[in-house]
């Protein structure tokens, strides 16, 4: 019963929202977020201004209409007048409508000019939309990583209870310092995506082949959650945006740590890997990148997503197996992972699929080491 009354209460609030009262002129869960940046606050004010103008026009027009419907009912003996035109009345309301629109256009233009600003940022971040994840590349610091949905498939399938940030949590958020001008350079890798953080009022399409810009300057540390807002295929709803804004010192420390981690990753290519190590690492990579389509049990969802279990390529054809992961399959859902996975991750995830389920028993059982991926890349470059 409790939840029903909550629903009802929210609904009544919602109805009140459009009524001419100022109760809801401020922040509310059912209104546009005010956000944290100067631009987002101005956009919120603009939104409220336009909405109230519309509400008042509505009150006047519907007021006259319902008055007429009530006053001139035939059932009360109303006789129809024969008036069918009035030149000055037509002119008056046309001019009035024009003036109101000019009144709306002026503040809108001001806010728009402010929001539209593609100068360099203090920090410039390349945001690339992939099916179905975001890549963040810090242009000044040589940091690059992918940000994947971290909500588990079990939660989506209703097998376990949903967490507080269901579908709006990622494994690795974008990290930015506060009080700095951040410029985003936004593009897409495959189809068009759209990068949206409501609290910054930044929404920009990620179009393959084009680089769009957007900017923000966040005054307050915090975690800001957003979404992909351009239909981009099956997992469109499953590639959220999460931004963590931190103090400058914390940001600097994070940069140092990320660079060190990347260096460590590179060194892994030279390490001598055992089968068990590769399989263990590969399982993690598989769960993060592959399960959505090929499923935990490797059976896929045929016909769109083929099974890996019992696949001739996965069991016996090592060369083709590497090629598919590196190049993707044109015309099919399989994308290229060449830019998404490190050599180590690539080698380990292929090894994992070749060793897991019944493939290890039935296939040739060969493993793949990072050097083979490096060799492949060198060969293709020629």
């Amino acid at each position, binding site marked *: 019963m409790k939840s029903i009354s909550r629903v009802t209460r929210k609904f009544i609030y919602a109805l009140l929202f459009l009524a001419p009262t100022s109760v809801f002129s401020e922040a509310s869960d059912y209104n546009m977020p005010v956000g944290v940046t100067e631009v987002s606050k101005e956009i919120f004010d603009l939104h409220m201004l336009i909405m109230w103008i519309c509400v008042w026009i*509505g009150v006047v027009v519907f007021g006259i209409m319902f008055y*007429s419907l009530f006053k001139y009912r035939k059932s009360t003996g109303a006789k129809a007048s024969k008036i069918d035109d009035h030149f000055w009345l037509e002119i008056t309301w046309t001019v009035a409508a024009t003036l109101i629109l000019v009144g709306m256009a002026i503040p809108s233009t001001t806010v728009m000019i402010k929001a539209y600003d593609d100068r360099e940022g203090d920090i410039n971040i390349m945001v690339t939309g992939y099916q179905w994840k975001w890549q963040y590349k810090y242009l000044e610091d040589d940091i690059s990583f992918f940000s994947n949905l971290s909500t588990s498939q079990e939660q989506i399938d209703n097998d376990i209870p949903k967490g507080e940030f269901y579908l709006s949590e990622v494994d690795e958020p974008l990290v930015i310092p506060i009080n700095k001008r951040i410029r985003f350079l936004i593009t897409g890798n495959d189809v068009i995506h759209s990068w949206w953080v409501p609290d910054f009022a930044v929404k920009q399409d990620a179009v393959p082949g084009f680089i769009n810009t957007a900017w923000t300057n966040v005054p307050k540390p915090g975690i800001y959650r957003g979404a992909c807002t351009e239909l981009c295929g099956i997992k*469109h709803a499953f590639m959220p945006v999460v931004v963590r804004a931190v103090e400058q010192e914390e940001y600097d420390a994070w940069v140092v740590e990320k660079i060190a981690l990347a260096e460590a990753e590179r060194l892994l290519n030279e390490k001598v890997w055992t089968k068990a190590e590769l399989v263990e690492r590969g399982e993690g990579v598989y769960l993060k990148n592959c399960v959505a389509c090929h499923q935990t049990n490797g059976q896929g969802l045929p016909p769109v997503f083929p099974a890996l279990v019992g696949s001739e390529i996965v069991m016996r054809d090592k060369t083709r197996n590497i090629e598919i992961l590196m190049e993707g399959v044109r015309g099919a859902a399989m994308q290229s992972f060449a830019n998404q996975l490190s050599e180590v991750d690539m080698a380990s995830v292929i090894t994992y699929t070749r060793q897991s389920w019944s493939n290890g028993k039935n296939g040739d059982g060969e493993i793949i080491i990072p050097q083979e991926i490096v060799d492949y890349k060198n060969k293709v470059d020629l």
Partner: protein
Amino acid sequence: MSTIVETHDDHGHHGPAKGLTRWLYTTNHKDIGTLYLWFSFLMLFIGGAMAMVIRAELFEPGLQIVQPEFFNQMTTNHGLIMVFGVIMPAFVGLANWMIPMQIGAPDMALPRLNNLSFWLLPMAFGILISTLFMPAGGPNFGWTFYAPLSTTYAPDTVTFFIFSVHVMGASSILGSINIITTILNMRAPGMTLMKMPLFVWSWLITAYLLIAVMPVLAGTVTMMLMDIHFGTSFFDAAGGGDPVLFQHIFWFFGHPEVYIMILPAFGIVSHIIETFSRKPIFGYSSMVYALTSIAVLSFVVWAHHMFTVGMPLAGELFFMYSTMLIAIPTGVKVFNWVATMFRGSISFETPMLFAIAFVSLFTIGGFSGLMLAIVPADFQYHDTYFVVAHFHYVLVPGSLFGIIAGVYYWLPKWTGNMYDETLGKLHFWLSFFSVNLTFFPMHFVGLAGMPRRYPDYALQFADFNAIVSVGAFIFGFTQLLLLFIVIKSIRTGKKASDEVWEDTKDWGLEWTLDSPPPYHSFTVQPEVK
């Protein structure tokens, strides 16, 4: 020539042929109108069933009923069917029935073409719907089918989709040619352009819009076809093409298309409001000028669908201003409807109830449209449920209510039988309640941040989505009542008079005919003073 006419006269007022061939071979405007309307009604239930699947899945967070792949097919086909299979054919059906009767003509100008333009439609939708049963699944890239999701990344069935759009477009173009020819050539003596009924005016303008933009749509899908099968790169950046070009071309078609789906409804409600206010429409000439301005402006506002695509500042501002301008003629129409009711003598039969709901709810959709025109604010609204709320307000209680109002208004004339007024009112109140329950909360879900075309969503959107789904189910099942009312009226309705409503002879030539009207509407042209 004259011998043919004489032979024809020997038959006198012959009726329709019997059996299935009556419908297959018919060249009669009423039969074809009936076919269009029943086709549209059937599609309403198919597209509606898809909406029910969507709302069932969105009833609560998590994936319960369908997987995202099928969900995307449902949203895509729901949109395509409702736009091209329900709203447009219903308007063409009404045009077929009413235009000859309103201008005092015996039939449409090009009867064989008329037959062809109808029969293309079941072919087009047969192809489209059949893709849902193919292994690759139906189109899943949204009814706006943005490239490259609809080209490089599309399922193989996209080729069927392209063919189907071509056939639909051909049907619309042929239908429009017929309508324009009829209106320009077959009006009764004395009926000057500025004496034409507003429904005829609205269709004349709509038909020109269709002829202007349908070829653009055909061009767009042809370019897709080339990209997919013939190695071109119109929309593929990797080959030097431009995915944004797709959106420009699509919306150059798409925005006039939006008005194609509302202008005839403006015409219908204008007639209904004057009939039931017993007062001539206020500002007839300004109504005509408003229709024309809306149509002209519709060609210069397309990029307001693309504010986040990355346009120069000057482009963003131009499309904001031009879009805001449309509020003026639209506002004028609303003011004129209200002024028509003012000092009228108003009664509330079912068509009038739907027309009043049209005026108020369409206006709400107009307000949210004005909000969406404000570029900086649109950065927050774009591609959220706020947009879904907006276009459903203009298309469901707008266009669809306009069509339903027209059906209640003219059905007794068509069949000679009244519908059941009590059931009609019940149908209205259920529809009115549930349409708002469905689409009003969507404004809030959208403002709160829920993007459209999502099969699953974060927990804070759960309550409103549940309400929306309940509303949608009520609205969906309520429309079965309309089917019942129509069938009941055809089979057992009380006999309607020739005027059907009170003193309608003042409101149009159609009311001077018998109920039901003769097979060839006006064999002798009436004189209009």
